[in-house]
């Protein structure tokens, strides 16, 4: 018994030591699921002698909630979408860096430097950009799919075979596009209309989930799936006969960004990582895996040609993609209620 106690106590002490001390050479990433090829992390580890750990999330909102609930200070970087960068900055969750701290800063494509959500790139660098729309199984439906009716007012044969992303920002932006009203409208009638639209569409939806978005299309548990462009391409690669739609009412475009988190335990390593991701070759590795588009100049040369030619990454010339907007607190509170109404 004495030995057991001793062993237990020393092991406890050991665990304590490892859990509180942040040793040199670590990096803690908080990223979307299925968004980072292992080979890229291995390459980074090998080049810099840094041990990388990564946790994943499945929506901008759940990442924000986790950070606000006490995870801030345990991660170095996370990968929020455009509007979420703005929200995180306003919530004081981001650290800033200067251009001199990133030798590859100049590799950022000029159009992605002075972005509205982080003017001049003080806290973030581009990760990938792409679009959110929906994919339809062509074995199940052969008609015109370029309309948001596919989600909100589906034809009879697709009712009950729809999966929608569990992502508040994107779903509510899509609802606004469908209704032809501005995002973050303060108009009470318009907000009510959004709520009614979702309540009326919900019975036709089989599931509201992000992590199964690709799987349900492949297994045909869903024939219409709201989905990110790269995931649509991957679903087709895995055997689903899906076509990605660019609806005439509009669709969501986004840019995910690596942000430097406040109270990052390994700030130096986080900057090394960001610099690493701005190398054209590494950005291309990321794109070849995730099948979106990099925002880094010169990465095109390293791209897999099939990835560059994906229909998902080449919207029609008259396509009208919009960014999700960060709403005011007043509207966001109503949005939260609408979302809770939908989820319950």
């Amino acid at each position, binding site marked *: 018994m004495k030995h057991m106690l001793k062993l237990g106590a020393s092991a*406890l002490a050991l665990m304590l030591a490892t859990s509180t001390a942040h040793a040199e050479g670590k990096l803690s990433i908080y990223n979307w699921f299925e968004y980072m090829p292992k080979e890229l992390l291995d390459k980074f580890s090998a080049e810099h002698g840094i041990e990388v750990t990564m946790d994943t999330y499945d929506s901008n909102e759940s990442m924000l909630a986790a950070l606000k609930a*006490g*995870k801030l200070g345990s991660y170095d970087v996370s990968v929020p979408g455009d509007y979420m960068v703005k929200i995180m900055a306003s919530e004081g969750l981001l650290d800033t860096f200067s251009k001199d701290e990133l030798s590859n800063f100049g590799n950022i494509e000029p159009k992605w430097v002075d972005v509205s959500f982080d003017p001049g790139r003080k806290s973030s660098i581009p990760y990938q950009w792409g679009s959110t729309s929906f994919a339809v199984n062509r074995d199940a439906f052969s008609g015109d799919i370029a309309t948001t009716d596919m989600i909100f007012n589906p034809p009879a044969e697709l009712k009950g075979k729809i999966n929608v992303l569990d992502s508040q920002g994107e779903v509510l932006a899509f609802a606004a596009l469908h209704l032809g009203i501005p995002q973050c409208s303060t108009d009470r009638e318009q907000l009510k209309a959004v709520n009614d639209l979702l309540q009326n569409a919900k019975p036709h939806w089989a599931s509201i989930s992000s992590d199964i978005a690709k799987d349900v299309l492949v297994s045909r548990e869903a024939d219409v799936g709201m989905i990110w462009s790269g995931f649509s391409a991957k679903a087709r690669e895995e055997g689903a006969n899906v076509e990605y739609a660019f609806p005439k009412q509009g669709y969501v475009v986004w840019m995910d960004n690596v942000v430097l988190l406040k109270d990052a335990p390994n700030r130096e390593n986080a900057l090394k990582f960001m610099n690493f991701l701005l190398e054209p070759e590494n950005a291309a590795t990321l794109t070849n895996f995730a099948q979106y588009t990099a925002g880094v100049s010169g990465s095109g040369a390293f791209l897999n040609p099939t990835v560059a030619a994906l229909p998902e990454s080449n919207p029609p010339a008259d396509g009208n993609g919009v960014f999700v907007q960060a709403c005011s607190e007043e509207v966001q509170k109503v949005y939260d209620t609408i979302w809770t109404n939908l989820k319950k």
Partner: protein
Amino acid sequence: MARKVDLKRFPGFQSMTYLCLILLYAPLLIVMVYSFNDSRSITSWGGISLRWYEDVFFGLEAEKFRAAAFNSVVIAIIAAITSTTIATMAATGMLRAGKFRGKSFSFALINLPLMVPEIVTAVATLIFFSAIGFNAGYLTILIAHIVFCIPFAYLPIAARMQGIEDIYEQAAQDLYATRFEAFKLILLPLMAPGILSGFLLAFIISLDDFIITNFVKGAGIETLPTAIFGAAKQGIKPNIMAISTLLLLVSVVFVTLSYLIGRMGQNKNGKQI
């Protein structure tokens, strides 16, 4: 006099039993079988192969699973040792120390982790650690595991102790052994099968826990169940079935061991636990 009807037999009970066993085992056996499927798709059968086991050990996610398995085993060993120690002391207190203040309260307290729904324990633990500013990490998982392992370790230990009369300890004390010596030299060896059985159950309970671990784990830390859950959320892949089969076999081995050790103890002393 032999009865014409067997009163222990009721019609249909036997078929119900077989139905029950089929229901319990069919999904597990099917997953086991499909884990040997050669096909890349999980739905069509492509012959027998070990490729998904190879994938678990050497594939892309091998490192993640290995780290998670290591965390799980280390946490389970420490949690099981600590909770078994605490449970042994508690059983001795409850069954060998006569009456004392707070005894009935103690009994309720030890069983409390069994009565509070797991999700409530998870929420409460998360809130508590967060409120006192305790950084989530290995230690938060470990503490939570120790708490809910205590009753599981306590049950077989107390059952065993109830089956051992204290005449041996009394005899030792008559021969001038101190109470500590009586405990160490007499009670503990007699208790060994019960303690080992409790340890194994605590180990398996800790190894298997998902809900509480998922709530209290810190950044970048995964145990095997949370890693499996994370992967399975995005769809059940063949490698998930392979790793599930492995974890399943570990559980079966440990439960069998615990069971056999318990029986061994019984036979030696000729007493029912």
